[in-house]
């Protein structure tokens, strides 16, 4: 049993990256930004008052979503770019770019990764 635990720890360390969904952002600050920008007009977002949008996908369980927009790996860096520059990454998307700073994009991502 102990050997198994050590093996698994080594295996995880060998990946050389933090777990995919961890970010250093402030999830509460991200939540306020999501509310202020009314992202809920298009997305259903748990924890945001009135966010029952049906224009884009629901963000319920987003932390466990494998792909963003069905085409981009759901990794923190990718998500931060996505919320700021979606059209550059998927030209056909209906999602416009948003003027978030690096820090704000990180906070928004942090909140989205609390949605399990």
């Amino acid at each position, binding site marked *: 049993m102990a050997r198994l635990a050590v093996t698994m720890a080594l295996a995880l360390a060998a990946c050389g990256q933090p777990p995919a969904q961890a970010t250093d952002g402030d999830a509460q600050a991200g939540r306020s930004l999501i509310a202020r920008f009314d992202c809920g007009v*298009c997305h259903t977002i748990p924890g945001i008052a009135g966010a029952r949008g049906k224009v884009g996908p629901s963000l319920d369980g987003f932390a466990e979503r494998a792909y963003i927009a069905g085409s981009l790996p759901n990794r923190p860096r990718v998500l931060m770019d996505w919320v700021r520059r979606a059209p550059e990454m998927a030209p056909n*998307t209906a*999602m*416009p770019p948003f003027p978030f700073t690096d820090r704000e994009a990180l906070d928004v991502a942090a909140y989205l990764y609390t949605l399990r």
Partner: protein
Amino acid sequence: MSPHQQQSTLAAQGPAADAIATLWWVMLGASAVILLAVIGLITFAIAAPPERRRWLASSRIVIAGGIVFPVVILSTLLSWSLWATRGLVARPSAALRIEVVGEQWWWRVTYLDDTGRPSVVTANEIHVPVGVPVTLVLTTADVIHSFWVPSLAGKLDMIPGHENRMYLRADSRGVYRGQCAEYCGGAHALMAFYVVALPPEAFEDWLTAQARPAPEPADDFLRRGRELFLSTGCGACHTVRGTAATGVIGPDLTHVGSRTSLAAGILANNQGTLAGWIAAAQHIKPGNRMPSFNVVSGEELRAIAAWLESLR
């Protein structure tokens, strides 16, 4: 300014709202004193020994407490309240005139010049100069609505076939929220607006800017947005001055990008909410006159939203 200060009778920012706030506090105080006195007397009547409470049963006390006291107090409070709120119906001279029409479920706002002709048409947002009395001419295009911006003035109904006038003055700079206060159909609760009080010079600048036609698109993407707006038929209901869009059924969008909110005070105003509203207007505000326009591609939707946002 916290949300409750934005929309609260108790956070008065003008003479009309001041009078109403004072009325509320005085009525509350007087009622509280009388309530406490009555509770005291009831307690005394129940708990005191019979020989000490017998005086309460005399007809003199019943007449004094049951007839004279209410008549005097209520008459005094009524007279005072009429005097305290006399400013609500006074008619200040040389006021700026703004016509506000309630529609299901938004507000059409028209600024009138000195000759009574429309100078600027906008929607869901009323800019006023700080310290200057303003006359609001209130009417409705359909059912009864009620115009209420609690931090600045009392409620006044908008009645079919009738013109009501409200006089208000904002004493400090700020953004005040108002809403329809008379049930007017399914989306009644989604019919809000903002009053933006600016220093007089800033107000004049705003009015001048609003009177201009829409700015020319700054790049090809915005130009495409304008073309799509026109080719999709948005101009059948909306006016954008300076373009072929001259519809009058919905709000004038000439400077929609400059507004505080979208869809009558219910959404933030950015490219995302513009796109979302265009695509899902019926989901966001069921029953309103705008169909959900999910008929263009995602990219085209973004182009239209980006162009509208650029109309500042």
